[in-house]
């Protein structure tokens, strides 16, 4: 009985992990297959679909997506840090309500936020803001709560005695923020910014309303294309952007070392 049960457990675990990895493997294989028939034999594989990516059809949306993600990540890092600082460090009165407001966009589905922003821009006569500016604003609304929450958590974990120790050694408030608080919450700040970057780069539900011809992000370009064809070039686009994301995370990690957070780096 026990053996049967643990056998079932291991089998189901393996099946579930296979379920999780299957589509990823299939996409990688598809991106290397010579035709739309997916093949798993490496002898037949080709890089031609990746070569096809070097065209403005794919490069322009990619560059726009990167540009937006970088701006969104920086702005939500700064705004999130300001909000988290006031709430978690200064602990100004009403900080719980303030935090609740900063996090409130999380309670609203993305598609609803998207509709609200596009209706707002349209009915306020701000059509011109559709495209890049609208995308940036929308994505910031989306990512700011995550950034604020991550930074606030690392400020809460920050040992207040370190601040007092610096104060008794004569450090002014600005000096303490600059030399004690910021270095210690850097991992939280960077993980918030990385998160913002990924969310913005991959976003669909908001972007779908905010793009305009000529100013379309990469995921939207891909899904528009997908409605007509399942060309293997799409697989190549997807794999390439996954590699790009992984590289970015790696770079952010090198810069901010947020994995140190897991090992108690901010303590």
């Amino acid at each position, binding site marked *: 009985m*026990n053996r049967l049960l643990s056998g079932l457990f291991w089998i189901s*675990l393996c099946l*579930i992990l296979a379920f*999780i*990895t299957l*589509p990823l493997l299939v996409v990688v294989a598809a991106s290397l297959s010579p035709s739309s028939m997916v093949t798993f034999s490496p002898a037949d594989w080709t890089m031609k679909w990746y070569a096809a990516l070097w065209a403005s059809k794919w490069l322009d949306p990619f560059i726009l997506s990167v540009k937006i993600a970088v701006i969104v990540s920086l702005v939500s890092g700064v705004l999130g840090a300001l909000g988290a600082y006031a709430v978690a460090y200064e602990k100004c009165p009403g900080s719980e309500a303030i935090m609740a407001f900063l996090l409130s966009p999380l309670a609203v*589905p993305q598609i609803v936020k998207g509709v609200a*922003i596009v209706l707002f821009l349209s009915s*306020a006569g701000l059509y011109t803001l559709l495209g890049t500016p609208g995308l940036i604003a929308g994505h910031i609304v989306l990512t*700011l709560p995550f950034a604020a929450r991550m930074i606030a958590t690392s400020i809460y974990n920050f040992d207040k005695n370190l601040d007092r120790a610096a104060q008794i050694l004569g450090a002014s408030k600005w000096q303490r923020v600059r030399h004690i608080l910021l270095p210690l919450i850097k991992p939280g700040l960077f993980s918030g910014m990385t998160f913002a970057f990924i969310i913005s780069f991959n976003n669909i539900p908001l972007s779908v309303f905010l793009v305009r011809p000529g100013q379309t992000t990469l995921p939207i370009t891909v899904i528009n294309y997908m409605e007509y064809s399942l060309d293997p070039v799409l697989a190549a686009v997807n794999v390439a952007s996954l590699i790009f994301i992984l590289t970015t995370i790696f770079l952010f990690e090198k810069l901010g070392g947020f994995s140190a957070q897991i090992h108690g780096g901010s303590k």
Partner: protein
Amino acid sequence: MTIVATDSPAAPALRRFALRGYVPLFPPFAVLLLFFAVPIGMMIGISFQDPKTAQFSLGSYQRFLTDGLIIAGLFRTILMSGLVAICVTVMAYPVAYFLARSTSRWRAIVFALAIAPELAGVVLRTYGWLIILEDRGFVNDALIWLGLVSSPLPLAKNLFGVVVGLTHVVLPFGILALLTSIQGIDPNIEKAAQILGASRLSVIRHILLPLSIPGTVSSLLISFTMAASAYATPALLGGARFKVLATMISEQIMFYINWPMAAVMAIVLLVLMLAITFAGGRVETRLHKKLNV
């Protein structure tokens, strides 16, 4: 603080200091007000307008409640989200249990496998499922080649395809929710039950399942809400025939250019989410109290 603040000379200084504390909040508040609070308010306003004349009207709400197609879409959304919630929670449980209890070096690998797909974005995964499930896709090709079926099974562009795709998208979140909960159960409690004579099955029934109910509920909740508000997966894997609230909203904006109707649908979706989150939160606190955990 309150004692000093009555009418001593220190009071103005204090007030100035307190105000200064709020200054860093201005930029994030301004952004959220302008691009979140105001737009949501305007959307609510627009939902009460007539699509043509922009006069005050409850017409769109009336139509939502009476149009059979829309109501069908609402129920389809709920059915789809419920199925996804159940599939995700059932599949997440063994993985979360393994991650919570294992000390082997496989743990890190399984954790990476379980969470990493989240980085890949929804498009990649949906694309993967499309080439697996479509009529001339992977699974159907294999089935036909094996001679098991003569014509392709309808795996994509329907409820089945969307539930598979969404389960894949939401699964990592279900795993994380259950993982937190199972990690909170002292492994010694399971050992204690075992040494008292409980078989593996009894340990699961009497100890593990009751104690992880809060995690199960939060996994169901997060899966339901994520599925109900998902846009890209139903749009791509559901096709033109399988419409849910999220895809119907974008249709209203982009094809019918009926803003009030889109606003009404968005508000219904929002209210549905808030109601479920609220009710779920209540259930969770109640369970925590009842289970004494």
